[in-house]
Each structure stands twice: as C-alpha cells, then as structure tokens.
C-alpha cells in the first residue's frame, strides 16, 4: 500500500484518548469553527476511567464546612511529599468545585446528603470528607456524563483507532498522527495543528495491577520519542488493597472506599496494625504508608495465607455494605466466593497509578514540545510522589478543560498547515506493518510477560541500587527483543499486532522508571529505597527527575522543584491545618 491510498483527515486539534481527560479536553476545544478529533483505542465509554470507584475529591465542604481549597491544596502537597508542582495543585484545588458542579449540570447524578446536596466520603489522607461519589462506580458516572455530553458537542470521535506515530515538522512541532483502524486494519493520517496526549498511565507494565488493558503508555511513549520531557518517572503508586485470590483476579482493586466507610486492616494475629504505623490517620493513612505497612507485616511473617492482610468491614452490617459498596460485594462474591458482609477478606498492594509522566505547563497543559499538550494520568506535576485517592478524577476535569483551551488557542495561533510529507507517512506505515511481515520473531505477549516480571522484581515497592542496576542491565536484552516483535495473522482486529505497539511503548517507559529509581537516593512517597530509607528534604527532595530520549538512549537530568510563593508556603509554616473560617458559609453545593 502506498501513501496515495492512505486516508488523510485534517483537524485543528487531535486528542489521543477518550478517558476523562481526553473527553473533557474535547468538550472544551470543540468551539464553533474548531475541528476536533478524539481517537480512542477502545469503544467510547470503555476507557480505563470507567474503573474508578471511590470518588472525586473536591472541597465543597458539604459535610465538613471547614473544608476549603486551601485545605485541599495542603493535603495534596503533603500527600505528594512536596514533589508536586505547587501551581498545578493550587489551580486544581481552586477549580475543582466548579468542575464538579459542571458535571452535575451535564447530568451526573451523585449520591446526596440528607439536605439534598452532593454527598462526600472520607478517603485516605484527605483531612475532611471530600469525595463526591456514586456508590463505588464514580468513574462510570464521570465517563458516561462526558460521553453523552461529548456526542452532542460537535467533535468527531474515532473508536478503536490507535495512534502509532507522531509526525513533526523541522522545528519538532507536531503536524499530525499516524493511526490505524483496529476493525479493518487500514491506516489513516490525522493532520493537526495541535495534538493532545490523554492516553492514561502504564500500570500494565506490572503483573499485579488494578489497571485496565488500556494502561500501556503508548501516548506517553509517542511524546517521549518526539523529544518531550518526562518527569518523576520513578513515581509509581502501589494501592494498598488489591485482590489476592483467586490468581486470575490478583491485583484487581478493592476500593479505598472500604476503609473510607469504616473497614479496618488486620494481620494474621488479628492485630489492627495501622495503629502502630500511623496512630493518627490509622487505616486511612496515605497509600504509600498503608502499602508499605502491609508489605512489612508480610515480611515479618504476619501476612494472610496468600501474602497480604485482612480487610474487615463486617461491623458495618450487610445492608450498609451492599448499599455503599455494591460492586465490592459483588466482586468478592462472584470471583472469590467470599461474602464481605460476613467475613474479612484478603488484600495486598497492587500497582495502581503512574504519578510520573509528560512534564506539562500548569496553565495550559503544554509540554516541552511546542504544539504538543498532555493531561490526565499521562501528564505529570499535580501528584508529586504520591497521589491522593480521588484526586485523579478531579485532575481529569480541571486539566482536561485547561488543556482543551490551551490546544485550541494554540491551534488558532497557527496560520499555516504543515502536512506530514509522503516519505514521513511511508516510514510510519512501514514501521506499523513490519511486525506482520516478520516471519520469525518475538511473541509480544511473551515479551510483555517478561517485562512485567522484570519490573515486579526490580522496580517494585521496595527498591535499592543493586535491584535498579540489575533491572537496567536485564532491560537491554528486552530492548533488543522489542525490535523484533512479530504478529502473525491478518490486519483485521488483530490483538497480537496491537500488542506490539503497547510492548514497544512499555519497554521505553520502563527504562525511564528504572533510571529514576536508581537516581533518587532517598525514600519519598511511593519511592522506597531500602538503602536510603529516609527522606532527603534538602537534597533529592528539592529535585524532579527529567528523562528525555536522546537518539536511542534515555537520558536523565534533574530540575529544581518549583518554589511556592510566600502566601502558599505560609499555609505549611503555621503548624496548623488551614481551614475555612466562619463555618456557616461552608458547603456551596
């Protein structure tokens, strides 16, 4: 097939990803006269976001009127161990209430308080009850609302279309993407003035993960290959409570909502061990702390039969549990034959979220490459070294909107179109077809499995120098194998072929994670170094890691963490939690 036969479409803004971030961006960008395309490798409404359970964090103060944006900001920075970009956290905490109300305006139906306002639940390391939620299916509510808003907002949505390459002009600016229709296997070039990456995280790089099939990081890899800067890649979140048994369900999330609604963690001796590790926040301590505590209990021989801890919520009663946590009830009953209203159940840490990602400008979501933007889990800056539960869904709304505006404005400022050249397209096509033509080659499923094993051993919850170095050495062999991936069969809906693009992306991102894990000689948030068990606030704690691709090599450099202006810094120096004064004004929704 020659370029002459490849379809070319032209859009002002092309958005990769139809999760919460991509859809919110598209709704904002699709102004009259602006042509917007959204590409999604799955069907509409199925994105990873649909899995989110517990809720979205927003300081309405509907139940706790002292809550305000300052408290939310404070919790977010503290949770992120001050590696966050303060300006992102500030924008986020300030704009969250408007974004969530807007969702209600578009049809979302949140659980209510007795006064008829949006109800809010407690979650780890949030000082107040803060998570707007719908039972334990908040992600579904978010995506369905944006999906049905989106289809009436004048954007073109391309379902089951996967982007495999980003085209650039001589100055490195994106000129479009190369993509293929999974159903037919045919190619398509989307010419664009601005490209937004909203393709989510890469938790699938690990075996034990709560993440959906989609989280394989292709968008982040596209950005990295194009030369964009990646930040804090070593920061990968372990959620303390994933399912442990049966084997097929291992890693599946047990929402923090279980602990938010009163569940407690016990070791094999029946001890509520979180009282020892964090007497103040107990079972609702931040995720990094709870995950490490479970890990330590297991190491000390006090783990559950399958190597985890017990979670017990039976004291809340069957009615309450079924109403507040219906999916959890169903999940354990149907998959593990366990009735969580009657007995404690086993949980263990699972890979959950990637805090690191494409470095972005807080105001517009612009990356280090002019014309390329990013938002959502693929971007980096808001969460620092540890994301608080519920902060991601709100992140998607706040920065999805901002990146939509940023990309739209940028596209408007670009007068001329630069179309990808015929030779660029031919090259992208050849690269995409290569795995189908290779008679002998590596099985992408096997390489994926080997990568998962490597990451599980060398970049997991407990790290040290030897592990990271050995991991990088082992990765060299995988990198070579990833250049010889083969996928027999036709082009029509061929999952093996699709897996090739995913595995190539993950191998690239894995190197950045391992390099970051080796470089950061301290323990901070999700990054726990056994050989450097303490935080180094004056040294490593002042720096973000930056990874860039230089030719074929991943190069790590560092950059100082942006310093807060005095009025924000003051929130942390008083030694007191900043709260809303005059509590009668609380609760504006």
């Amino acid at each position, binding site marked *: 097939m020659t370029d002459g036969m490849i379809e070319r479409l032209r859009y002002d803004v092309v958005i990769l990803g139809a999760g919460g971030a991509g859809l919110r961006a598209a709704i904002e960008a699709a102004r009259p006269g602006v042509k917007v395309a959204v590409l999604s490798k799955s069907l509409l409404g199925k994105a990873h976001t649909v899995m989110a359970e517990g809720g979205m964090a927003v300081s309405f103060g509907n139940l706790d009127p002292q809550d305000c944006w300052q408290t939310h900001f404070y919790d977010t920075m503290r949770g992120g161990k001050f590696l966050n970009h303060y300006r992102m956290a500030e924008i986020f905490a300030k704009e969250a209430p408007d974004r969530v109300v807007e969702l209600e305006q578009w*049809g979302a139906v949140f659980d209510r308080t007795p006064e*008829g306002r949006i109800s809010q639940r407690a979650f780890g390391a949030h000082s107040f009850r803060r998570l707007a939620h719908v039972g334990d299916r908040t992600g*579904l509510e978010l995506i369905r609302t944006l999906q049905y808003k989106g289809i009436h907002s004048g954007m073109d949505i391309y379902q089951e279309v996967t982007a495999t390459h980003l085209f650039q002009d001589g100055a490195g600016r994106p000129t479009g993407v190369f993509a293929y229709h999974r159903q037919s296997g045919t190619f398509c070039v989307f010419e664009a003035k601005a490209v937004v990456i909203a393709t989510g995280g890469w938790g699938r790089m690990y075996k034990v993960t709560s993440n959906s099939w989609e989280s394989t990081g292709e968008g982040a890899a596209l950005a990295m290959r194009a030369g964009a800067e990646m930040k804090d890649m070593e920061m990968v979140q372990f959620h303390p409570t994933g399912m442990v048994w049966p084997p097929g369900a291992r890693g599946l999330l047990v929402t923090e909502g279980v602990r938010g609604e009163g569940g407690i963690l016990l070791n094999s001796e029946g001890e509520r061990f979180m009282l020892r590790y964090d007497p103040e926040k107990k079972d609702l301590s931040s995720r990094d702390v709870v995950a490490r505590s479970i890990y330590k209990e297991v190491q000390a021989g006090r783990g559950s039969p399958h190597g985890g801890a017990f979670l017990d919520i039976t004291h809340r009663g069957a009615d309450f549990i079924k109403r507040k946590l219906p999916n959890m009830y169903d999940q354990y009953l149907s998959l593990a034959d366990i009735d969580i209203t009657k007995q404690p159940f086993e949980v263990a840490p699972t890979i959950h979220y990637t805090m690191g990602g494409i470095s972005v400008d807080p105001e517009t979501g612009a990356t280090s490459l002019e014309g390329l933007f990013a938002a959502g889990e693929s971007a980096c800056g808001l969460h620092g070294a540890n994301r608080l539960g519920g902060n991601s869904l709100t992140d998607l709304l706040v920065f999805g909107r901002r990146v939509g505006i940023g990309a739209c404005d940028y596209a408007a400022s670009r007068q001329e179109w630069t179309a990808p050249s015929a030779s660029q397209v031919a090259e992208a096509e050849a690269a995409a077809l290569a795995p189908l033509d290779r008679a002998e080659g590596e099985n992408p499923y096997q390489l994926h499995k080997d990568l998962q094993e490597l990451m599980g051993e060398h970049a997991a919850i407990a790290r040290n120098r030897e592990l990271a170095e050995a991991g990088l050495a082992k990765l060299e062999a995988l990198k070579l194998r990833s250049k010889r991936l083969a996928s027999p069969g036709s082009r029509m*809906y061929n999952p093996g072929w699709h897996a090739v693009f995913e595995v190539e992306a993950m191998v690239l991102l894995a190197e950045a994670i391992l390099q970051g894990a080796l470089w950061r000689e301290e323990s901070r948030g999700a990054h726990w170094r056994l050989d450097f068990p303490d935080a180094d606030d004056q040294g490593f704690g002042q720096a973000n890691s930056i990874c860039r691709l230089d030719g074929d090599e991943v190069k790590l450099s560092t950059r100082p963490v942006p310093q807060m202006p005095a009025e924000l810094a003051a929130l942390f120096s008083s030694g007191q939690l900043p709260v809303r004064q005059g509590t009668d004004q609380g609760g504006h929704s």
Partner: protein
Amino acid sequence: MAEMRTLHVFRGDQSGGEEVAYEVPVESGMVVLDAVHQIQATQAPDLAVRWNCKAARCGSCSAEVNGHPRLMCKTRLDAIEGEIHVRPMKAFPVIRDLVTDVSWNYEKAKQIEPFAPKEPAPFTMYQRDVERSQQFRKCIECFLCQDVCHVLREHSAKEQYFGPRFMIKIAELEMHPMDGADRVPFTSHQAGVGMCNITKCCQEVCPEHIHLTDDAIIPLKERVADREWDPIRALFRKPAVR
C-alpha cells in the same frame, strides 16, 4: 499437571467461520476471559476479543457462552459443566472472532435528546428522588440486553426499536428530577417502545441487575399510553417524577 479444559471458540468473520477447539490449563477461580487470554498468549495471538477492565465494569467482553449472553470476565469456568462454547453476540454483525460491530448502538444513543437542566447546578435533589435515575446509570453498555431482546435478535427490527438499553437511557433522563425535556412522543414513535412485549429477558441477563422492564420500560409504556389516550391532560403537564 494442571487440569485441562477445552474451549470451543468461534473463529471467523463476515464471510463465515467455525468453532475451533483449544485446550487450556485451568487455575482456580479462572473466568472465561482468562482462558481466552491464555489461548491468545500461547496458541492464537490473533484471536480477536474485546476487553478492558476484567472487572465487570466496562462492558467490553460481551459474548455468548454456551448460548447465554454473558460478560466473559464474570463467567467462571467452574460454574460451567461440560463443554464450553464461546461465540460472538448474535444480534450484531460479527467483525472477527468474538468481536462484533456494535456501532448501531452508538447511532441510536446520539438520537436521544440529551439532559436538559431546568435550572443551573448545583441542584438540590434528595436521594430518594435520584434513585431511579441512578439505577439506570449503572448501565455499563455491554449491550447484552440488546443481544437477548428478541425484537432485535430474531426479528432484526433495528429500524423500529432502540432496544432495552436505550429505553433505560430515556427513562434515566425522564426520571431525572431536574430534567426539563419531553421525550415521551419520541419514545413512542422513533424509539418504538411499543415493540417490547415485556418478556423480561433483558433484565434477566443484565450483569448490573438493572430492572429494565419493571422499572423503566413498563413505566415508559404507561407514560406513552397516558399521553396518547388523554391528549388534553397531557397538554397541561409533563409526567411527574417517578
């Protein structure tokens, strides 16, 4: 040695196809989707299947297991006696293997008038008033109800009936306390609620246990009947919530 089981999986496309038998080693608690992944990883890398969450949340992995519309990620092997046959949903054209063309659903979705708030949010709404809407909003769009509904499945009456999934979509909007639009004539005419003859098959297969027929379709039929028999009264009021 692990216990082995045989899965007979449909392989083919629009031009035809047949079931192919694959032997799979069984782990405890394994679901059909695990077995399909096993086959993909070791025997047939190009076996086409949709899935995203493997947690019964996204509604991607719909198929027919021994003739029953099911989510593959929620169907345990140890719950199936004897042979295991996995085929694509019958009500939609097959693309390849277990993947079907469900685009018709997305076209119907677009034709329904979206949420039309009567006033700007934030709303004051009570839990008891939003419960109906919330029940329908649990829908994961797996389209298993569409697959099982005989109107679409046997009679291919896709021009006349939107199917149960979109009846609850309409009901969800109509029963939203703050919605100001009127979709009753649409429900009767374009969406064709009259085509449903209340067999309740849809609510039996729904993995989200939504009471499609009892809580949505029957009330919608009542609203339509109410309106069409009593046009004068209908002029003066929009059907009340619930």
